[in-house]
């Protein structure tokens, strides 16, 4: 019994990494099913959906909330950061184990508890919370303001509170590991770019999840202890005044988005680090301007801390503050563009070796550019006033955060799969998965820009009502739904590929991608690291490379 328990509650970072990926898989499955139900409901509002029946407006809002919360917290925060970092980070810096293996394990199991608390919200009377993943008060501050706002909202708050503590524990462990456990000679300029990304995301996690936890506690106090941090005077429900003080909903917005915007970078920075590594690996070239590329990752993280106001242009915030936030937001385009230029430099004239991980990294790049280009548009307060609550925003963040993030997760899984199972994933199925996903993802999210420009609002459960223009959007909606279904179906190929390859895949070589970073050293790591992580592109030619575990004595 004790042995079984100690195997389940393991402190081994590689096992925990795989566990994190399983957690993300569970969350992404639920989240995807929810999004399919929403898409079906938008096109055929009166259809009966299995287990749900006819979707009522509040059900639709509950689906939106759960979809957003699951995807942002339990997929895009866990998989790229905790999942992959647990799998390879200690190996990449030449450490035997994490600095605090047990704290690391506690972080994972608290995440699982948070996940279970969150999805239990769907099974209670009243259903899950309906106020979106950002839970704006006063809707979220008063238990009788909607069907899911009683116990459902409490469960949401408890779940997120636990998740904050879990992330805080993991971040402490990750930072102590990166700073203290590097092998001798593993200097800052010899760190793989993924480690740089995880360093930045861990710092962000440490700083912003604490703020979210404070906000969640204040909101919980508003709901149960009669305080009025966020409830404004004169707030009305059903024609009755329920407000009881001069609370400020805007205060929640500030606290939440101070967390919420860096959260986006927590989701996407590991993808940027991984893409850099993969481009170097599959084009057999060094990273141009390594210091600049690493520095820009840090710059994006730091700038990400001062742009939260651009989520609040239409919230009644002081317009001068809006201008300031518009400036900082556009400033983020500079380091992002430098990163993109660095990647394009690597790709330009590099020997493109289009294996599946490389394809997904290129897909990441494509979404990062396509979704990123609408960022500076939305950073204009005047434009945002029109676009803010439309599908344009939905399209923007699904491309730049969701699709870019998830494609980087796929790239990571295809790339590191041999490390987990000792087998390769099937290339043909992988390429099929990539091309269908790429086309279907663009087919799903590109038309949303046009729907948003035409004024289609977010969070509305159906396109009926007095507005004349909306019925003309129905064909676009239908196309988006078909495309979304195709996108979801393509993931079945991936699942099949994972489970079939884990059992019957081709046995992997020791270093299947001819990579130079230490996770492929296979136990031959040296006492001192003497070289950089991307020593490809040798003057001697012939595709040679110097892996990081090679000693200088072996050079000739």
């Amino acid at each position, binding site marked *: 019994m004790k042995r079984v328990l100690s195997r389940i509650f393991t402190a081994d970072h590689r096992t925990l990494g795989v566990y994190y990926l399983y957690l993300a898989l569970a969350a992404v499955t639920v989240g995807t099913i929810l999004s399919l139900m929403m898409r079906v409901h938008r096109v055929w509002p009166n259809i009966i959906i299995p287990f749900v029946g006819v979707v009522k407006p509040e059900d639709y809002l509950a689906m939106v909330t759960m979809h957003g919360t699951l995807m942002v917290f339990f997929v895009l925060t866990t998989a790229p950061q905790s999942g992959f970092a647990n799998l390879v980070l200690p190996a990449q810096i030449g450490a035997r184990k994490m*600095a*605090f293996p047990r*704290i690391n394990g506690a972080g994972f199991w608290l995440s699982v508890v948070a996940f279970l608390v969150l999805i239990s919200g769907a099974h209670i009377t009243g259903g899950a919370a309906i106020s979106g993943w950002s839970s704006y008060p006063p809707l979220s501050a008063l238990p009788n303001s909607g069907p899911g706002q009683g116990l459902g909202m409490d469960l949401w708050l408890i779940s997120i509170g636990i998740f904050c503590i879990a992330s*805080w524990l993991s*971040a*402490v*462990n990750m*930072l*102590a590991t990166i*700073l*203290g*456990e590097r092998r*001798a*000679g593993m*200097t800052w300029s010899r760190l793989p770019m993924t480690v740089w990304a995880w360093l930045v995301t861990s710092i962000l996690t*440490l*700083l*912003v*999840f*604490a*703020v979210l*936890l*404070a*906000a969640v*506690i*204040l909101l919980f*106090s508003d709901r149960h*202890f*009669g*305080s*009025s*941090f966020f409830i*404004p*005077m*004169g707030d009305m429900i059903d024609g009755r005044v329920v407000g*009881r*003080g*001069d*609370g*400020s909903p*805007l*205060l929640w917005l*500030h*606290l939440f988005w*101070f967390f919420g915007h860096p959260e986006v970078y927590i989701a996407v920075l590991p993808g940027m680090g991984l893409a850099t590594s993969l481009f170097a690996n599959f084009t057999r070239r060094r990273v141009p301007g390594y210091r600049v590329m690493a520095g820009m990752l840090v710059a994006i993280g730091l700038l990400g801390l001062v742009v939260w106001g651009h989520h609040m242009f239409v919230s009644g915030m002081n317009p001068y503050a809006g201008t300031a936030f518009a400036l900082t937001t556009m400033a983020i385009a500079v380091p992002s563009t430098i990163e993109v230029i660095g990647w394009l430099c690597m790709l330009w004239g590099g020997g493109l070796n289009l294996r599946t991980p490389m394809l997904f990294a290129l897909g990441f790049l494509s979404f990062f550019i396509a979704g990123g280009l609408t960022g500076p548009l939305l950073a204009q307060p005047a434009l945002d006033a029109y676009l803010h609550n439309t599908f344009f925003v939905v399209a923007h963040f699904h491309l730049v955060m969701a699709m870019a993030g998830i494609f980087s997760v796929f790239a990571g899984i295809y790339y590191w799969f041999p490390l987990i199972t000792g087998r390769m994933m099937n290339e043909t199925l992988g390429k099929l998965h990539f091309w269908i996903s790429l086309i279907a993802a663009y087919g799903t999210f590109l038309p949303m820009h046009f729907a948003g420009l035409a004024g289609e609002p977010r969070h509305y459960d159906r396109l009926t009502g007095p507005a004349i223009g909306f019925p003309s959007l129905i064909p676009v909606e239908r196309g988006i739904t078909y495309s979304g279904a195709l996108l979801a179906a393509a993931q079945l190929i991936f699942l099949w590929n994972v489970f079939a390859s884990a059992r019957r895949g081709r046995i992997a070589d020791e270093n299947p991608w001819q990579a130079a970073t230490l996770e492929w050293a296979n136990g031959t790591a040296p*006492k*001192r690291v003497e070289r950089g992580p991307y020593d490809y592109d040798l003057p001697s030619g012939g595709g040679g490379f110097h892996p990081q575990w090679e000693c200088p004595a072996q050079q000739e």
Partner: protein
Amino acid sequence: MPATFTRHQQVDIERKDTGIGGKPPLIHRPTGGGGDGENWENHSEGNHGPRELLIRYRLGVFFALAGDLMFFIALVSAFFVRQSTGHFDVHNNYITDWRALPIPHILWFNTAVLLLSGLTIEMARRQLFHEIDVMEEWLGLGRPAVKRAAPWLAATLALGLTFLAGQWIAWLQLVHEGYHFLSIDPSSHFFYLITGIHGLHLILGIFALVAALIGLFALKKVEFRQIAVDCVAWYWHAMSFFWVFLFVLLVFFQ
């Protein structure tokens, strides 16, 4: 001629990391002539000695406290925002429901007690890093550091409990004056929330102190005794620092 045996390959003699216990747990590592111990490039091969272990735990505590500091900063910024929010009445006057809270005078006494406890725990911490005592403990000749640190730790424990009792009395006084947590007043909400959460941190600190005190006698290795006391001390210092920051907020920015 005696038989000789020639190795063709040069064999690397693998020098095992001596690990913990191989080196005395001193802050200054003897580096020999001319070497500087802080240069990463000059590090010796094994870097898993006692000093690295101490640094690892210290780093963990510092990072955890950095997150905690952000948590309190968020509360404090909420305090300032909430203080200024209000609404316009029918005559277009800006009205806010903020009432300054009469801060119980006992808080001054509590603050003094907490600052004093910071001194005592620093004394306890320093006892464990006196080079001559550490060497004596490390060689197994006696436990002078434990003997000297334990009273200071016990004093800190007493002062910490006094502080918590004082905070409780402050709450009782406020309730007596009609400022309940469940009343409608935003400033009293903040007062209870801030002192309550800080008190919760201190209760955790008390548990950690007790654990360190037990560890001082139960832990077999001087390295681990150092780590236990050192980490608790840094946590405790941070809580004193946070309290001064919160106390100034509560007293001077009502």
